[in-house]
């Protein structure tokens, strides 16, 4: 056992014991008693090997017991929170041991996916328990269960908002990325433009472009075209800068090779420089997928017809319906991840030859 594992194991057992002691005096529920006892018994690991799956099982059982015991009191007593701490410690211990086991090849690599999943679930669970148990004001942070309830009850609204916003996202993304790409090729053909336009482009890409949203609303109206315009402005520069970098990525040896074949500019571009630039271009596309979504949503803060994700967020925030806001954000997160994921999958197929896709960790 490593030092960290030892500390965690002792702490977990101790806190479980404490929970049990205080709880038995203060009206603890049966499942939590079982959890406390199980936690205390894990000290056996100092005398005989205890499988890491036991730690995981104790943590999982403790989670269920805590959720079950939320209704017992209005104000949760100290031992309740100690139980939460113990549960967290067991989960941590489980993850720590699993990571070590995978590193030592005692467990298959594929199990590695369990670790971030367990971590995510633990966060979610702790969120639920803390917000409900500590009576956190719903306006500050609603419990996940509440958000889920609101989400499932508001599907029509959420869908309408999603469609409205995504019109802007997709149109702006397509237009902005194409424009960036075309200008990059133009800049490549003209060394003068490269020296004159690129520094300005680099400069502008660091600026808060999202600020042009009110101006776009003024020029293009309230509906989604103005939001698409903001997205175009936001996605143009990363695409331009990355494509130019990518076009310069092919090394001089390969370009000399094309010269020995007396290949024309366009032949060299299509056969050598564009494929070599693909990793950079996809990097920009991935960055832009996030920027597009952010741009469309924040642009809607500045005025939009009564539908759209940004609109919904800003108005519901004003009405303090935070659970609906979180529901919108959950939808946005899923949509954003899906968008990013699709691009990443295409990247894998197109740039299969690049070392980062082939072997190294992404």
């Amino acid at each position, binding site marked *: 056992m490593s030092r960290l594992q030892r500390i965690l194991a002792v702490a977990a057992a101790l806190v479980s014991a404490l929970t049990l002691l205080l709880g038995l005096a203060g009206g603890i529920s049966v499942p939590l008693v079982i959890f406390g006892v199980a936690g205390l018994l894990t000290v056996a690991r100092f005398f005989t090997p205890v499988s890491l799956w036991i730690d995981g099982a104790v943590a999982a059982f403790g989670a269920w017991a805590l959720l079950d015991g939320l209704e017992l009191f209005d104000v949760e007593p100290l031992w309740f929170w100690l139980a939460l701490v113990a549960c967290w410690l067991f989960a941590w211990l489980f993850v720590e041991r699993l990571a070590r086991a995978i590193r030592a090849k005692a467990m298959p690599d594929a199990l590695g996916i369990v670790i971030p999943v367990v971590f995510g679930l633990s966060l979610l669970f702790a969120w639920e328990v803390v917000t409900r148990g500590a009576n956190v004001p719903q306006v500050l942070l609603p419990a996940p269960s509440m958000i889920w309830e609101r989400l499932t009850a508001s599907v029509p609204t959420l869908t309408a908002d999603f469609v409205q916003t995504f019109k802007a996202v997709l149109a702006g993304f397509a237009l902005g990325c194409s424009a960036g790409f075309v200008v990059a090729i133009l800049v490549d053909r003209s060394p003068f433009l490269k020296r004159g336009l690129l520094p300005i482009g680099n400069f502008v890409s660091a600026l808060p472009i999202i600020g042009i949203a009110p101006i776009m609303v003024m020029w293009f109206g309230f509906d989604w075209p103005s939001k698409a315009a903001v997205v175009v402005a936001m996605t143009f520069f990363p695409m331009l800068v990355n494509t130019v970098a990518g076009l310069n990525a092919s090394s001089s*040896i390969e370009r000399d090779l094309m010269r020995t074949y007396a290949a024309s500019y366009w032949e060299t571009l299509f056969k050598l420089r564009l494929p070599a630039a693909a990793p950079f271009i996809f990097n920009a596309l991935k960055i832009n997928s996030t920027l597009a979504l952010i741009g469309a949503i924040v642009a809607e803060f500045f005025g939009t017809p009564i539908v759209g994700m940004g609109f919904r967020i800003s108005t519901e925030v004003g009405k303090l319906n935070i659970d609906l806001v979180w529901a919108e954000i959950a939808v946005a997160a899923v949509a954003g991840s899906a968008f990013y994921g699709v691009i990443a999958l295409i990247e894998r197929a197109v740039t299969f*030859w690049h070392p980062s896709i082939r072997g190294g960790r992404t």
Partner: protein
Amino acid sequence: MHLTSVVSAKGLGLTFKTGDGDVVALSDVNLDINRGEFVSFIGPSGCGKTTFLRVIADLEQPTSGTITVNGTSPADARVNRSYGYVFQAPALLPWRTIDRNVALPLEIMGYSDSAARVKKALELVNLTGFEKKFPWQLSGGMQQRASIARALAFDADLLLMDEPFGALDEIVRDHLNSELLKLWAATGKTIAFVTHSIPEAVYLSTKIVVMSPRPGRVTDVIDSPLPRGERPLEIRETPEFLALAARVRDGLRAGHSYEE
């Protein structure tokens, strides 16, 4: 015997202007490379051997003197696709399989019988069976062979090779050297070969050009007395070989190649 000159340089000079002043890469080079010859250029770094090769290939432009390739200027020769160039690194495109890599010049130059040519080129370098592999799946030696196959695939009588085996270990290098000689016998091309290995230069060539740095110039041109036909690797222990190597070494020493 009627010798046709493939490359003819007279008083060739190339001076680079750098931030630290002028660098005379080539100075007063007078040299002829004749059809069917295997000419090695040997010398330390900075002696101008790679630069000379690049001038032939129109990858650099001379600042003085003249040079003709196949009777025309290097620029015309390049546009006419008169030579194949093999670089120090394989320079294969990683997103193409080996056969598509070898076919790259054929696509650009518009050859219609590309499949047959690719097959023949890969046979010449003993890479049959590896057509559908990607470059990273091949060892360094095999990648370099693919690069040579690519240079052989199209009709160019002149082959320019810039230290193609420099990055490989000696065992692979020996093997590729004897393969290269067999290939040269089979195709009858004219080969200009840059190296900084004395045994390699002596083993491969019919003519050895010894060069020295500061300024880059030719110190000796040696016609090899070794037989033109089959040269087994064992020839490297014969007295004639060793005498030739000594002569090359003397040439290098005379040009102060061994001094800092």
